[in-house]
């Protein structure tokens, strides 16, 4: 009897192992396909006319972002409202891609309006503009919200790259 039970248990474990192996293999397959499709989509949708705008904040910043509104040459191109988790993600070193799309070459003005709470709990709304030239390369612009410890305030800073 004990031998029968042992055999049954082993068979059940083998079946479970088989199922686990199949699950792992399929998960890996989906993961790789998802990766390849993301790359394909990127190749298809975005050529050298691509521009991406990012947002980051100082790690552990005492401010709290509520939302951000983004315009390019006066046209609205993005809005994001931050959940607590998303804000934590930013303050732990995450960088958010606010916009990704194709834009015309030439001079452009990017404007970001941020609302939030300052370290002393007061709400604020601040805007900043940035002028840049889109050339033949893909454009990457990062808007950084930096702490200004001396003034107990924060400031905006832009970084721009051509890929």
């Amino acid at each position, binding site marked *: 009897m004990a031998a029968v039970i042992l055999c049954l248990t082993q068979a059940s474990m083998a079946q479970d192992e088989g199922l686990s192996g199949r699950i792992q293999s399929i998960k890996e397959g989906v993961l790789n396909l998802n990766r390849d499709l993301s790359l394909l989509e990127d190749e298809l949708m975005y050529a050298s006319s691509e521009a991406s705008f990012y947002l980051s904040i100082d790690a552990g910043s005492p401010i709290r972002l509520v939302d951000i509104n983004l315009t390019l040459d006066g046209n609205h191109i993005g809005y994001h409202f931050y959940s607590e988790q998303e804000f934590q*993600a930013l303050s732990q070193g*995450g960088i958010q891609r606010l916009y990704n799309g194709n834009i015309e*070459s030439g001079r452009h*003005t990017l404007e970001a309006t941020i609302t939030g709470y300052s370290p002393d709990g007061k709400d604020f709304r*601040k805007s900043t503009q940035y002028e840049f030239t889109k050339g*033949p390369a893909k454009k990457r612009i990062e808007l950084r919200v930096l702490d200004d410890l001396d003034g107990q305030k924060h400031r905006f800073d832009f970084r721009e790259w051509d890929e």
Partner: protein
Amino acid sequence: MMARESRGSAFSRHLRGLTLALLLPCSAPVMGQDSDKLVQFDTPDQGSANPLGREEQRYLAFGEAMYDYYSGRKFNALTRLLVNRKQGLFGQGDTDYAELLMGELYLTLGLPGKAEALFDKLLEKELLRQTRAETWFQKGVLHYEEGARDKAIEVLESDNVEGLPQQLESRRSLMLANLYMGRKDFARALEYLYDIPDDTRQGAYANYNMGVAMIRSGQHSKGIELLRTVMDLAKGDTETNALKDRAALAIGLTALRRENFATARGALQNVRADGPFSNEALLALGMVNYDRGNPKKALPLWLELVQRDPGHKAVQEALMLAPRAYEDLGAKPQSLAGYQHAADTYRQELRNVETAIRQINEIEWLEKLKPETPPERAVPDPMSDLDDYTAKSGPQMTYLYKLFASHEFARMFRQYVQLDRLRMLLGQWERALPAMGETLARQKSELSAAMDPVRKQLVTARQQQRKLETRAHKLVSDIPARPSMERPEDVAGYEELIMWQRVQKLEKKLDNASGRQAERLRRVRGLLLWDIARDAEQQRQQQQRHAGNLVEKTALAGVRTQSVEQLVRDATRRVRGDLDESFSDKYRRLGSLQDEVNALIDDVKQVLKNDALEVLAERRQRLADSLGQARLAIARVQDESVSDDRQQRSGETTNTDEEAETQ
């Protein structure tokens, strides 16, 4: 004079011509200031672009992955990291932390083999102390989750994990406490437990688990002491309060088993009446009173309980206990009615269990357990955390709580939900791929038609732009730095220039004139020259500024021409490229994966269904046993009533005989 004139007019024509030519392609809208801004922060920045090097590319790519990771979109984070690796962003430079994160994500998705390979590869490298400690820690987690207790302890207690951040240090202690609890080495488990603050959720769960484990191994007083720390926690959220109730119940049941009625009663009274463990608490409180020989005090508690959901195990037990208490109190009719009510309820519950078994076979009951998808997100992240199962409806749900509480079911159900979400993701790609294919076909046909004319126009535009750029540069170099009144027309303003030209014409006309007219003209000329000379410095600066702008604008036109040239190269690659083949490959892989996922989901569902049927069969057996007991009790009470009647009747007869004899 003629030479001066021609130079001056050429200069002005040049300036106007360039301005007109450049205004056309560069008419970017000018930004106005928003009126509703509370603060205009800084003046507009004007940036200069740097080339995006590998480090910057990694910085942005890893930052995005971190954002997804900490925002709870772990599958996205893992996909991003895989995309980055495919693009060659890993392997060189400071990418250790990204690889560590990738390993952790593999582990979360249930791919321990991939995770371990990554960790081992990382550990062969020179790492920062903290990264090395975290990599070893993740290896420990991997062994822990695989149930390799000894290996997990070996890794998590080794020097390799020294230097972990505080948050991971608490997790390490918790895992080690659980591992030693599993070995029944409570002394070691307690050592690690002290490292976890009691007032955290982790600490509370650890204390609870430890308390229960100690009681099971016979160390009652220490176990109860630990459970008390949980029971006495301040009120918190739903989960904390439920854990407090559970601790109080565990203390009460332990004390009851040891016939320590006062302690049991005190603990059970801490269980909230509206909490998830109130049924068990009422049952146990009744038992405390009953075992103390006070069925009268037990009865109201059980009578309250029998009015609750009859699917609950505690309620089903109370159905037999309440009439038993009546019986002990000598209330036979109430007792009989109680047993009959119990039998009826068990019979009804048996019918419900049968229905539940049928429904498990017929209906997609697992669908009801899945967490609801927020409407804003089409496909939930396959790796996002699962909440407790929410039983929305259906008779089977009441009976499956035991199943839901099992670790094995939770593990398999998690696999089921992940696979289901992966299937949704594949479905989303299945819908998107035709649109992408159409986009490619349209792009190809439109680009093929447009390419030749665009190339021709581009050659012309390039030539024009170069000419204009050369002219603009020449113009800048032709403007003398300092204004000179040798050529007043070069430094005159617009109105002054017109006046100056008129004066010159009149001078020519009145070349031979003399007297008053010539004198007046000479005075006007003098005044005009005075005005021109006065504004000359300002005019020259303005001219230099305009000329500088023209250089910038011609350069910008050059940038735009280059952009179009790049787009033409992109388009050529697109038209001639092998994206079609790539699409076919993806279609094939997608179709095959969808078939595999569907088959696998069916198999996983079958495993879960078998588990559920097993639980329901066990419930059916228990209900059948209870029904048998209820029927026996009814028969017993009825028998006792009949014999009591007989005794009473025979007692009455004896009394009558005695009375008759007396009379």
